[in-house]
């Protein structure tokens, strides 16, 4: 069974120079997938990168599976069980698709190269292509696969469906659903509301570096006022 508190973020603060990008972030993630929504430039990516240890936090702590990983290096965090799909994909330009997968291949992982190829047949077709010679969508699939192969306890995904064709978004959504079956936690940053609502059970709203509200997906779906307030949209 998944622990109740897979990832616990406690009063996390991040600065860029003198600007206070993340302010007292508190988040608890258990077995229910959570999504963060928010307008551009609110600090979502900064949060992901701080969780991964790539951006230095000024204060606050992060626990993964009861372990305090606040002082861990990015590599230790990855080893402890965080899978990271960064915004902008960050594919290695001089590795081929298959080399990307070989790089992170592990013996006792639940995810094998074959399994990945069966989820994303397009990657199998392009297996010998260099990273920078893939289409945007192909890169996105590869970035997700790369993180999965590490067999993480929790996935942090920063806009994983950006640039994907609708059919492939379907595949990704399916995949995200199946994460739960594999008992993998999920923190999802999304701009595609329908994906977020379909995958996550809880929605966090981020505004100017703060988590300003937390609602269930059901609530947000039905509450147009809330949508208007936080997301500035109307569902037709």
């Amino acid at each position, binding site marked *: 069974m998944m622990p109740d508190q897979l990832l616990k973020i406690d009063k996390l603060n991040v600065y860029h120079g*003198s*600007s206070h990008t993340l302010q007292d972030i508190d988040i608890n993630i258990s077995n229910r997938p959570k999504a963060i929504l928010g307008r551009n*430039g609110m600090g979502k990516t900064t949060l992901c990168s701080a969780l991964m240890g790539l951006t230095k936090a000024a204060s606050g702590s992060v626990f993964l599976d009861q372990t305090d990983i606040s002082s861990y290096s990015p590599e230790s965090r990855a080893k402890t069980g965080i899978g990271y799909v960064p915004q902008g994909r960050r594919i290695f330009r001089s590795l081929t698709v298959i080399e990307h997968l070989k790089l992170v291949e592990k013996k006792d992982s639940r995810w094998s190269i074959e399994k990945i190829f069966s989820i994303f047949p397009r990657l199998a077709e392009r297996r010998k292509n260099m990273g920078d010679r893939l289409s945007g969508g192909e890169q996105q699939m590869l970035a997700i696969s790369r993180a999965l192969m590490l067999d993480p306890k929790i996935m942090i995904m920063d806009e994983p469906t950006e640039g994907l064709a609708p059919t492939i978004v379907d595949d990704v959504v399916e995949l995200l659903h199946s994460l739960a079956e594999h008992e993998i936690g999920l923190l999802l940053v999304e701009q595609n509301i329908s994906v977020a609502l379909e995958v996550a059970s809880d929605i966090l709203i981020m505004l*100017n570096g703060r988590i300003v509200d937390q609602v269930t997906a059901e609530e947000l779906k039905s509450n147009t006022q809330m949508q208007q307030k936080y997301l500035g949209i109307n569902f037709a």
Partner: protein
Amino acid sequence: MSRTLLLIVVILIILPAFISDFWLNQILTRSIILGIAALSLTFLTTYLGVVSFAQITLAGVAGYTIAYFSPNTTGLGIELPWLFAVALALLFSTLAGAFVGAIAKKSVGIYSIMITLAISMAFFYFTRQNYSIFNGWTGFSGITAPVAFGVSLEDSLVFYYATLLSATAAGYLVVKFTSSPLGLAVQGVKDAARRVRAIGIPTTPVIIAAYAFSGFIAGMSGVLNVWQQERISSFSVGLGPTIDLLIIAVIGGMRHPLGAFIGAITYVLIDTFVIDLFSRDRFNMIIGLVLLFIVMAAPQGILGSFLSAQKRIRKYDNNAIKRKIKNDCEI
């Protein structure tokens, strides 16, 4: 910054009254001349994103031009009025800069280091092997600074002020250039050359213009250098001075024109006095250690460390911006 700058200039103007001829000549004037050359490098590095090892070559082109067209004791060359010689020297160094740019236009980063290094080495070996124009290994000697508009530039004080004036002009030109649209385009090429083309600006002329401009600045230093040294030879354009220039640029800091000069004076002081202060047989080890220390301790160079702290506060003062975002977002 501008107030500090003014202060520095004032100090530099009155300084000769307080220091010996040696300090004036061998430390201050020499530093400023090296600083101008380093400025041509920091300009290219900061704004075009290339590390050029050819700046000493470009300075050398100007230097050799002066030597060839001035009275010298080598018995080679044609005598011209000094103004012509200077004009030719700057013209040639600018053209040489454009030529280097045309060759290196596709190279960035490490590759630019290499291609410019290759160019400078080719020039170095050519001057060393050729006797008909460059007088080979030995080069030209006995060149003296001219009498310009009634005052002799051989006078160390006059020469110092001429050098200071040139340096100020060079700094001014660089600042103006970089804030012009062409200068912005140069910076654009550094970040994303493809995008520069995609906003309708051809990149090749921009790159060539940047190199040519750096050639002009390097040429200024080349002219002054021959007048000060009263000589030039293949050694003046060899690997040693080339690496020295890089050292100067990096230890001084690349972000601001002043960095080049701070680097130069630091370098000249170390170069001149370390042998006195420490064991004379191991002075190179001391120079290496000092260099290592500066490079490691001051990431942005001596000036850069100071400046970047200032700049960060100014550029990223996001408080005001954030307030605005808040207004935009609040419904």
